[in-house]
């Protein structure tokens, strides 16, 4: 599903170089549920942006479903994101002027799906996350947990093979956090590849595999999730 070889992302701030990713090698198989964990500033979000094709690396190679992405045009990357990746962000990133339904329809619009089918798929996705009754609400009329569920529905609506979640529970209280986490597990059970980014090892432990990252390099990679220490 994902193969990253020798990836570097270097930010130059005047004379200072920040090596956000300092030689990452990572292979994620289809239908895996992987957590990426590390302290703040370790490069987790940077890595997620790379995996999500939102940003380009300074050097290194990256294949998604066997497709090399280094030399793809911006529009091709957009199409790739639309087709293969569903994003779940810490800050939900819903469009405030659109209703829940319209937000969920958005990836389908860019996919070019006709309105009847679009509505059907969007409603199914909202139903899936338990937000069917509130599909006509605007994001500000919803609680944080509800907004995140709408965001999950949006990520699922296009039936992508990869779900990328960056601190999806970061802004939620523990109870709703657990609900969202359960949803991620369900999504995985349905046959999706899930990459979950977090700084919390208790959350990371929900995955099948935990990749630890520090200062832009992978320091451990284990499927023995019970061994992942807190902190």
């Amino acid at each position, binding site marked *: 599903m994902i193969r990253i070889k020798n990836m570097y992302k270097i930010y130059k701030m005047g004379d200072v170089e920040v090596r956000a990713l300092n030689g990452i090698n990572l292979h994620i198989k289809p239908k895996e549920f992987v957590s990426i964990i590390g302290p703040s500033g370790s490069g987790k979000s940077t890595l997620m942006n790379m995996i999500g094709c939102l940003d380009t690396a300074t050097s290194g190679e990256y294949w998604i479903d066997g497709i090399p992405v280094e030399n793809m045009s911006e529009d091709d990357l957009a199409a790739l994101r639309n087709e293969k990746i569903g*994003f779940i962000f810490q800050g939900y*990133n819903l469009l405030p002027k659109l209703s829940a339904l319209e937000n969920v329809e958005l990836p389908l619009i*860019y996919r070019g799906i006709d309105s009847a089918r679009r509505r059907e798929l969007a409603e199914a996705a909202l139903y899936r996350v338990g937000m069917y009754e509130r599909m006509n609400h605007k994001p500000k009329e919803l609680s944080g947990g509800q907004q995140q569920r709408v965001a999950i529905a949006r990520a699922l609506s296009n039936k992508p093979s990869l779900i990328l979640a960056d601190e999806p529970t970061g802004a939620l209280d523990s109870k709703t956090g657990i609900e969202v986490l359960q949803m991620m597990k369900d999504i995985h059970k349905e046959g999706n590849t899930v990459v979950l980014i977090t700084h919390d090892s208790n959350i990371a432990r929900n995955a099948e595999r935990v990749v630890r990252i520090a200062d832009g390099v992978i320091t451990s990679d284990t499927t023995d999730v019970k061994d992942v220490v807190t902190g």
Partner: protein
Amino acid sequence: MNIGMAFKMAINSVMSAKIRSFLTMLGIIIGVASVIVLVNLVTASTLSMRSQLESMGTNLIQVSINRGGWGQTRSVSLDDIEELTGENSDLFEAVTPLVSGMGVIKYGTNNVSSSLTGVSEDYLSIRSREVVDGRFITETDCDNRSNVVVIGEYIRQELFGSESPVGQTVKINNEKFTVIGLLDQKSSNASSGSDDDIIIIPYTRATRLLRNANINSFMVSAVSSDYMSEATEAIENFLYKKFKNDDYYNVLNTAELIDTIDDALGTMSLLMAGIAGISLLVGGIGIMNIMLVTVSERTREIGIRKSIGAKRKSIITQFLIESAVISCMGGIIGIVVGIGGSYFVCKALSMDAVPLANQVTVISGSFAFSALIGIFFGLYPANKAAKLNPIDALRND
């Protein structure tokens, strides 16, 4: 993404900030409205001048001879006119000398001072007027220098009130005349100075009455308006042969006059449209300004859209349609304001409003122009939005 969706989104976004959208449109509204009002104003005055000229007849040629300096009596004789007419009987329909001056006309205790014109029997057909009561001057009246007079509606009202004028005896410059006819009313209220303020007598009689034995002016009607230039040329050639100087006479034809007025007013309406076009341009810059603000305010939205698969084209389309919607709405409001405005301005200047059918060009033109302006000035902001890097846009708060 399809265009219908983009329109819906654009209208939503315009409607969600009504005051701002309205202020953004204001430049376009003012621009379009002023184009329409100005062009309509010019058109209305052209139409009213034209209709005045056309009511005189489009086949009229008026010739006036400059009397010359003090004591000079440059003029044409009746023989000259007859010679000219004889030579050009294929071009001319009718000719009448015009001997004009001021006359005071009295009936009982009423008197009016008005312009007095001596004409031949052909005057009526040349000016396409009619006698509504009695008869017009005849050839016999001219030959006999009869003391007969035909009056206009204004003179009738002033002198006779409710009495019937035909058959009455009046005094013109203290000489007795019999009223033989009443001309049809030409102006709406038959006021002083209008075409109805007119006293007509045989030209042979006028030369005596006005103590002016010379004919300084005459009027010719061509067989049709198609022969105007030939007829005018014939007259000019004849007069040049006689006077050897083209400053000594003046030949005016209504067709040329209408053309001249059309030309002048056409230029004027272009100029007006140009000036108003500048305000449209300023309106366009206003749109660009706001669209740039909108793009930077919506950086995050653009980032989200891109992250879930919006291509450059979709983002460009979205913002272009938004600016086109703003400018087109402005254009439509401007058109409504402009049509209403021109109606009231024409009313205020007591001109006939321009029929809507004649406004099609200016309306569709200014609408198309405002749409183009929206697209043109939206291009830069839309492109700026589309070029945003998704990750930079997402990071923006």
